[in-house]
C-alpha cells in the first residue's frame, strides 16, 4: 500500500497522468462542443482513430506539426460528413455517428494495408515521427521550488499544453462571446435562436466540424506521443469514455478537464499497478476505466435527477 502511495504521489506518475489524460481531454472537449450544440457525437471514437492514422501516415513524409494539422483536417472532414448527413439529409445523428465509427474501424485498417504494403496490424514498418515534449528545464534556476517545478512541468507533450489552453479558450468562447451564447442556445432550445435569425444549422455544422477536429487532435496525441505508431483499434474505447466524460463533467469545459483527469488517473494507474500488485489480474485493471465511467455516470445522473426534482419542488 505504501508503495502505491509513493507511486501515486510521485512526479513521474503525475507526468503519466497528464500524458494519458491529454487525448481524453481533447476528445472530451470535442464531445462537449457537439453536445452543447444539441448533437450527441457518438463518432468521437472513429474520429480519434482516423486522427491517429492520418497523423502517423503524414508524419512519415512531413514534419510533426503538418501531421497534426492533417489529423485535424481529417477529423473536421468527418465532422462535415456527419453534419451533411444529419442536417441536410435528416439522418439520425446517432446512426450517422455509428456509421462513422464503422467506417473508421474498417477504413483505417484498409488504409494501413495500403500504406504499409500489406501489413494489417500495425504501422511498425513506417518511420513515423513523434510530437516533441516541451523542455522546461530552465525553470530549475528558480531557487527552492525550481527542481520540483521542472519535475512536474517539464516533459509534457506540446499538445498537453495546447489542451490546457483549449480548456480556457473554449470556456471563454462559450461563456464570454456571442457565438458561444448562440451555440448553447441552439443546443438548449433551437426554436428561439431560429426566431432571432441565428443560423441554427450553420452553427450545428460548425460545432460538428470543430468536434471532429478536436477528437482527431486527441488521436494525433495518442499516435504521436503516447504511442508512436498506429495499431488497429488503438483508441480502444477512449472515444466512448470521452462521451461519458462530457456528461460526467456537467457539460462544462472545466468539468471536462476534471473528468478527463479522473479517467487519465485510472488509465495511468492501470499502467503502474501490474508492477506493484501482480496478484491483481490485468483484465480487471483494464476494466477499471469502464467501471468508473458507468459508476460516475450513474452517480452524476442521480445527482442531476435530484437537482431537477428539488427545482420542481421549489417552484410549487
Amino acid at each position, binding site marked *: 500500500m505504501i508503495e502505491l502511495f509513493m507511486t501515486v504521489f510521485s512526479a513521474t506518475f503525475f507526468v503519466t497522468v497528464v500524458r494519458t489524460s491529454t487525448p481524453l481531454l481533447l476528445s472530451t472537449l470535442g464531445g462537449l462542443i457537439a453536445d452543447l450544440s444539441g448533437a450527441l457525437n457518438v463518432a468521437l471514437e472513429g474520429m480519434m482513430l482516423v486522427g491517429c492514422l492520418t497523423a502517423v501516415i503524414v508524419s512519415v513524409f512531413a514534419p510533426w506539426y503538418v501531421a497534426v494539422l492533417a489529423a485535424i483536417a481529417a477529423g473536421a472532414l468527418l465532422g462535415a460528413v456527419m453534419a451533411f448527413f444529419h442536417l441536410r439529409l435528416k439522418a439520425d445523428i446517432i446512426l450517422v455517428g455509428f456509421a*462513422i465509427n464503422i467506417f473508421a474501424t474498417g477504413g483505417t485498417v484498409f488504409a494501413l494495408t495500403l500504406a504499409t504494403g500489406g501489413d494489417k496490424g500495425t504501422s511498425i514498418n513506417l518511420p513515423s515521427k513523434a510530437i516533441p515534449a516541451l523542455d522546461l528545464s530552465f525553470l530549475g534556476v528558480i531557487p527552492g521550488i525550481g527542481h520540483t517545478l521542472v519535475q512536474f512541468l517539464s516533459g509534457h507533450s506540446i499538445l498537453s499544453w495546447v489542451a490546457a489552453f483549449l480548456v480556457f479558450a473554449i470556456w471563454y468562447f462559450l461563456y464570454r462571446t456571442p457565438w458561444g451564447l448562440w451555440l448553447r442556445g441552439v443546443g438548449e432550445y433551437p426554436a428561439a435562436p431560429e426566431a432571432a435569425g441565428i443560423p441554427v444549422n450553420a452553427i450545428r455544422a460548425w460545432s460538428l466540424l470543430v468536434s471532429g477536429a478536436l477528437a482527431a487532435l486527441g488521436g494525433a496525441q495518442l499516435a504521436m506521443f503516447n504511442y508512436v505508431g498506429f495499431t488497429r483499434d488503438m483508441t480502444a*474505447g477512449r472515444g*466512448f469514455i470521452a462521451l461519458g466524460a462530457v456528461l460526467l463533467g456537467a457539460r462544462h469545459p472545466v468539468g471536462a478537464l476534471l473528468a478527463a483527469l479522473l479517467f487519465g488517473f485510472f488509465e495511468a494507474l492501470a499502467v503502474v499497478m501490474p508492477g506493484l500488485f501482480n496478484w491483481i489480474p490485468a483484465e480487471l485493471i483494464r476494466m477499471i476505466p469502464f467501471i468508473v465511467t458507468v459508476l460516475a455516470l*450513474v452517480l452524476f445522473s442521480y445527482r442531476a435527477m435530484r437537482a431537477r426534482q428539488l427545482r420542481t419542488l421549489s417552484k410549487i
Partner: protein
Amino acid sequence: MSMTSEAVLGRKARWANIRRETGRALAAALIALGVAFIIILFTSKAPLEAFNVLLTAPISRPRTIGLWIDDVAKLTITGLAFSLVFQARQFSMGVQGQVYVGGLAAAYVALSPIGATWLAIPVGVLCAMIAGGFYGFIPGIAKAKLGANEIVSSLMLNYIAIELCNYLVRTQLVPPGSGVLTTNDFPATAVFPALVAGTRIDIGLILAIVAVLAVWFALYRTAWGLKLRLVGHNAQFAEYSGIRSTVIMVSAMTVAGALGGLLGAMFVQGQSYGKLTILFEGGLAFEGILIAIVARSRPLAVPVVALFYGYLRQGAQLMNIRTDVPSEVIGVVTAIIILLVASSFSLPGRKFFARLFGRDPASSAVMEAGK
C-alpha cells in the same frame, strides 16, 4: 363495405411503402457496391477477379453456403435485438456485451455436469438468455430511474463484458497449464446438432426463425408491443394515455438483451465453435445496427436484409482469403449503406438533388427546431 375498401386502401399503401423502402435499400446497396468497386479498382492488381470473388464466392461450395447461412442466422438475431431497442426509441448499443455474457453462461452450463446430458442445449440457451437479459436490464434501469445515458452505459458494459470473458476464460475455464485462451471442446450433447451434415447450418437457424416470429408477434399482436411502439413514437403521448413508458423501455431493453444472450449461446454452442474462445464474437453484434436500420426495425424484414448483408459479409471474408483485397472494405460499404438508408434520401431525383444543394425549403432549420 366501406370497411373493406379502407382495408384494401391500407394494404395498397403498405405495399407502396414496402416497394419504396426496398427500392431505397437496394439503391443504397448499389451505390455502396459501386464505391467498393472503385476502391478495389485502385487497390487490387486484379480488380475484376476480386470483385467477382466478392459477388459469387459465397455460393460456390456447400461449405461456403453453410458459412453464409450461419452468418445470416446470427445477423438476424442481432438485427432483431437492435430493432426492438430502436422501436422503443432507445439507443442501447449493448448487444455486444450481452453476447459475451450469454456465451459465458452457455459455456459454464456446457462445461458443467449438465453439459453431458440432453439438458445441455435447452438449459444453456436459457441461461444465456437470462444472463443477456440481465445485462440489457442494467442500462435500461439506469436510464429509467436515473436518466443515465443508455448509449454510454451500454457501450461501457460491452468493454466490461469482454474483459470479464477474457479473465474468466484465462483463470477458470481453460484447463490449468495450457497456454491457449480457448476452453476444451464442449461435450457433443452441448453442441447444436447440424441441420445439414458437414456445414455450419445448425439449429441456430431454427432458433433465429422462431425469434423472428416471436418478436413480430410480440410487437404487432400483443398489448405490450402496441405500448412499446407508442412509446417509441411519442413517449410523452404514451405517458399521457396512461402507459408507464419507463417500464416499457426497460422491458424492451431486457428482451433485446435476452436476444443478445441467445446470440452468445448460438456462437459458443453452435457448429462454428463448440467451445468458448476469447473475442469469439468478432464484431458481428454491432452489424445488427445496419440490419435494423435497413429493415426499418421491422422484424419480418430483418431476415431478408440479413440474407443480403450476410452474403456481402461472407463475400468480403472470402475475398480477403483469396485475393489481395482486405475484408475491411466491407466496413466502408457498411458505413455508406447506413448513411444512405438512415438519411431521407429518395431515389436520385429532382427532390434529392434539390435537397443536396439546399434549395428545398423543407430542409431548413425550421423543421429541426421542432425537435
